[in-house]
């Protein structure tokens, strides 16, 4: 900024001496400022990275006459790059976008849900790991909180990429939001590629049956897909770390489902909660329950070797045992919990 502040008066003085005769009206002055700024950006050799508020103020101050396609495009551009960086990583994660949303998720993590994470020492400090959790809460808040818990409580502050359900990858607004915050689509190709790169991966094998479950089914783990996560872990020799999330299942208590409402919009389910859709936009505010995220002992699968992935009986057995471990962890935490709101 200081370089910019030094250059402006020099460029201004040079031009002003040439055009002293011009009346110093407000509009003329504004136009001059605009011209000089353009000149400055040309001198710098690149387009200016304006803050969106500066861009907005400029667009408003130039009045109706300044409203052109180009100025609107510049305004849009300033807003977009205030949120996004110009280059994402190979899987579409955008560090700048994550930073932008962080205050909001931090608020949810620290204030709204007062998340308490234990057992982070079970996560590997480096190398691949597959975190397997119980899914709930209608919207994928649990994945985001799991990500934050690992970010905050684990000494290596690792990024845990979440494997997102296909249905979230199809929905507008949510799809780019998830992929920019480091999620990838849940399919074996992606999981295997990321684990071979030595990344930490989070997955909810219950899938859509878990996230959309009814309130009366809370904390009863649904069927674990078809064991795809076990096959990937076996093929890559990755340890599985079970992770019990308690508190997320009460944030949107689903009393009933009216799936036919959502079907024309491509929604896999349409929940009816005490507040949604009756209270309109207020209905999407999640309830401030108290959360705990417990990481369990890692399950080492390297003894079976990659050929174990071809054995459906073994895959089923491991999948079931992980499910039972997870159910036990959830039940244990529930037994110790005295209040939904205060833990």
């Amino acid at each position, binding site marked *: 900024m200081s370089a910019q502040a030094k250059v402006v008066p020099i460029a201004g003085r040079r031009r002003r001496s040439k055009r002293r005769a011009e009346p110093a009206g407000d509009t003329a002055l504004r136009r001059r400022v605009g011209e000089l700024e353009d000149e400055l950006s040309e001198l710098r050799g690149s387009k200016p990275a304006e803050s969106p508020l500066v861009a907005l103020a400029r667009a408003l101050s130039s009045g109706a006459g300044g409203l052109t396609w180009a100025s609107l495009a510049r305004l849009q*551009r300033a807003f977009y790059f205030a949120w996004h960086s110009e280059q994402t990583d*190979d899987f*579409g994660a955008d560090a700048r976008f994550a930073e932008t949303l962080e205050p909001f998720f931090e608020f949810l993590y620290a204030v709204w849900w007062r998340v308490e994470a234990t057992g982070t020492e079970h996560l590997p400090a480096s190398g691949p790991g597959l975190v397997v959790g119980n899914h709930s809460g209608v919207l994928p808040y649990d994945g985001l909180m799991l990500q934050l818990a690992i970010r905050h409580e684990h000494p290596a502050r690792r990024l845990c990429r979440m494997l997102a359900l296909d249905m979230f990858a199809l929905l507008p607004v949510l799809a780019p939001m998830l992929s920019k915050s480091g999620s990838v*689509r849940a399919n074996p190709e992606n999981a295997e590629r990321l684990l071979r790169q030595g990344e930490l991966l989070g997955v909810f094998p219950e899938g859509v049956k878990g996230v959309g479950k009814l309130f009366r089914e809370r904390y009863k783990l649904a069927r674990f897909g078809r064991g795809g996560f076990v096959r990937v872990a076996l093929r890559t020799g990755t340890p599985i770390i079970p992770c019990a999330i308690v508190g997320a299942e009460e944030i949107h208590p689903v009393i009933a489902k009216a799936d036919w409402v959502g079907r024309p919009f491509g929604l896999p389910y349409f929940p009816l909660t005490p507040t949604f859709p009756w209270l309109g936009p207020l209905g999407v505010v999640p309830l401030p329950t108290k959360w705990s995220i417990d990481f369990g002992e890692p399950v080492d699968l390297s003894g079976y070797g990659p050929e174990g992935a071809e054995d459906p009986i073994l895959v089923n057995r491991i999948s079931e045992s992980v499910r039972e471990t997870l159910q036990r962890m959830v039940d244990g935490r529930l037994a110790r919990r005295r209040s939904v709101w205060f833990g």
Partner: protein
Amino acid sequence: MARTAITGTASFLGGRLLRRLVSERGADAVLAVDITPPPTTLSGVRHRMVDLTLPGADRRLVEVFREEEVDTVVHAAFFTTPRRDSAYAHELESIGTLHLAAGAAAAGVRHLLLRSFTAVYGARGQNPSFLTEERKPDADSRLAWVRDKVEAEAHAFSFSRRYPGLGVTVLRFATLVGAGVHTFYTRLLSKRVVPVPLGYDPLVQMLHPDDALEATVLALETGPCGVVNVVPRATITLLTALHLSDKLIVPVPHPAAYPLAELWWASGVGEAPGGFIDYARFPCVADGEKARLELGFVARHSSREALESYLAYRFPEAA
């Protein structure tokens, strides 16, 4: 002597390849097979007029390939831009490749290299972040543009199975963007206002033409190696690309966007049919690992550099 025949020399990539081979191997080593003759600046290049869409084109091709002693054929006669005249596109791309593969097999051609597109994988929400060559192309695509390419690939491979002497390489190029490229894609990039589906921002790949050419030349040196993706160094998100080129973006909810685009296309104004909206909603990003291992090809340009090269060419006053 063994010549290399190139079809579609009037297309951007075919024309560039013709020039490159003429300068590397001399005019006599190359044969242009097209309905339009090569530019007069390329003096001494042999040209045979063959219309691939005509019945009996395969017999004519056998004659041509035998007489000219052709051992390698590069098939670049494909439409990068969708055509309203989809019947002709089908005749040229699908049936034309059938004729070409038949002619090449009968004339004892050793290597048939097909130009294809990574778009044949189809853009789907369920796609993995990197599509490898093992992924089946989208044969049931709603776009005739995609189906014709998939059929053309299938024709080439079925001839190669029946006539083992004929080796096939299919180079699936990512979307070409760069100086000199004129496709529906770059025409969208040269508008002031671009409609996009609301709430989507997929990763896209833009391939610099120099990289495409380099990969083709490497594939000709390597010999038949099946399907190979040719992709740029890095991806870019669609909205980043549009904002970097200073477009005004109009978000349209996607349920409305498909019929509107279809109407726009049918009324003769739109650049492409509605099915292409899929590519603005979902990723269709191909993996370039096989090209690195088998052809030794690594793109020199990233998607962003390809875009900047196009913008500098199209809007020289802004650069």
